[in-house]
C-alpha cells in the first residue's frame, strides 16, 4: 500500500463548477500538507501549503486537512479553463530535510 493515495482521474468538469480533489495517507507522522499544480511538460508549482489540521483559503482555492481521518482536500471554486492541469498532493513529517511524499496526481480538465 502506498503511503499517499490519490485518484489519478482523469476528471473533467464544465467551467464554473466546484472541483474537489482528495488524498488519503497512512503515515500519522505527516505534519506538512501541500498541493502542487503541474501543467503539461512543466515542473510542479506550489499552490497551497498547510501545517497540521485545518483549512486554508487563497482566492478560489481552499485546502482542508483532517488528520483524524488522514484525509486532505483541495477545492477549486468557479473553475476556469486555465485551471486545467495535474494536481499533486504532497506531505512530509517533521525534522531534517523535508522529504515530500507525493500522490500520483489527478489530471483535471475544465471545459469551456
Amino acid at each position, binding site marked *: 500500500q502506498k503511503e499517499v493515495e490519490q485518484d489519478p482521474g482523469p476528471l473533467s468538469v464544465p467551467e464554473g463548477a466546484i472541483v474537489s480533489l482528495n488524498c488519503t495517507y497512512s503515515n500519522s507522522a505527516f505534519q506538512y500538507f501541500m498541493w502542487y499544480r503541474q501543467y503539461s511538460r512543466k515542473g510542479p508549482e506550489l499552490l497551497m501549503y498547510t501545517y497540521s489540521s485545518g483549512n486554508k483559503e487563497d482566492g478560489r482555492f481552499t485546502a482542508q486537512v483532517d488528520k483524524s481521518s488522514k484525509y486532505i482536500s483541495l477545492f477549486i471554486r468557479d473553475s476556469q479553463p486555465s485551471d486545467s492541469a495535474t494536481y499533486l498532493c504532497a506531505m512530509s513529517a517533521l525534522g531534517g530535510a523535508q522529504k515530500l*511524499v507525493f500522490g500520483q496526481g489527478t489530471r483535471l480538465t475544465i471545459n469551456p
Partner: protein
Amino acid sequence: DAGITQSPRHKVTETGTPVTLRCHQTENHRYMYWYRQDPGHGLRLIHYSYGVKDTDKGEVSDGYSVSRSKTEDFLLTLESATSSQTSVYFCATSLSEAGGYTFGSGTRLTVV
C-alpha cells in the same frame, strides 16, 4: 522556474552508458532533491542533499549516485543506464525544513 536550471532538457542515451544530469540553483537554498516522475507512480525521491557534501538516499536510489560540491549545484549520475531509468527527472530545492519545494523544468531522459 528561473532560479533552478536543469540540463540537459532532453537526452537519449544507450543502455550501459553513464549519464549525468545537472541541477543549478541561484536561490541559495540549503536543501536539494532529485525526483523521477513516471506514469502510475507519481514523483518518487531518488536522493537528496542537506548541505555541501551532505547527501542521503531516497526511496528509489538504486543505480543512481549524487554529488554536491557547491551550494548551487547538485548532480545526478546514472552509473550504467538501463531502460527502466527512462523517465522525467526533476530537481527541487527548499530553503528550510518546512517551506515547500521549488521545482526545475525537468529533464526528459530516454534510455534505448
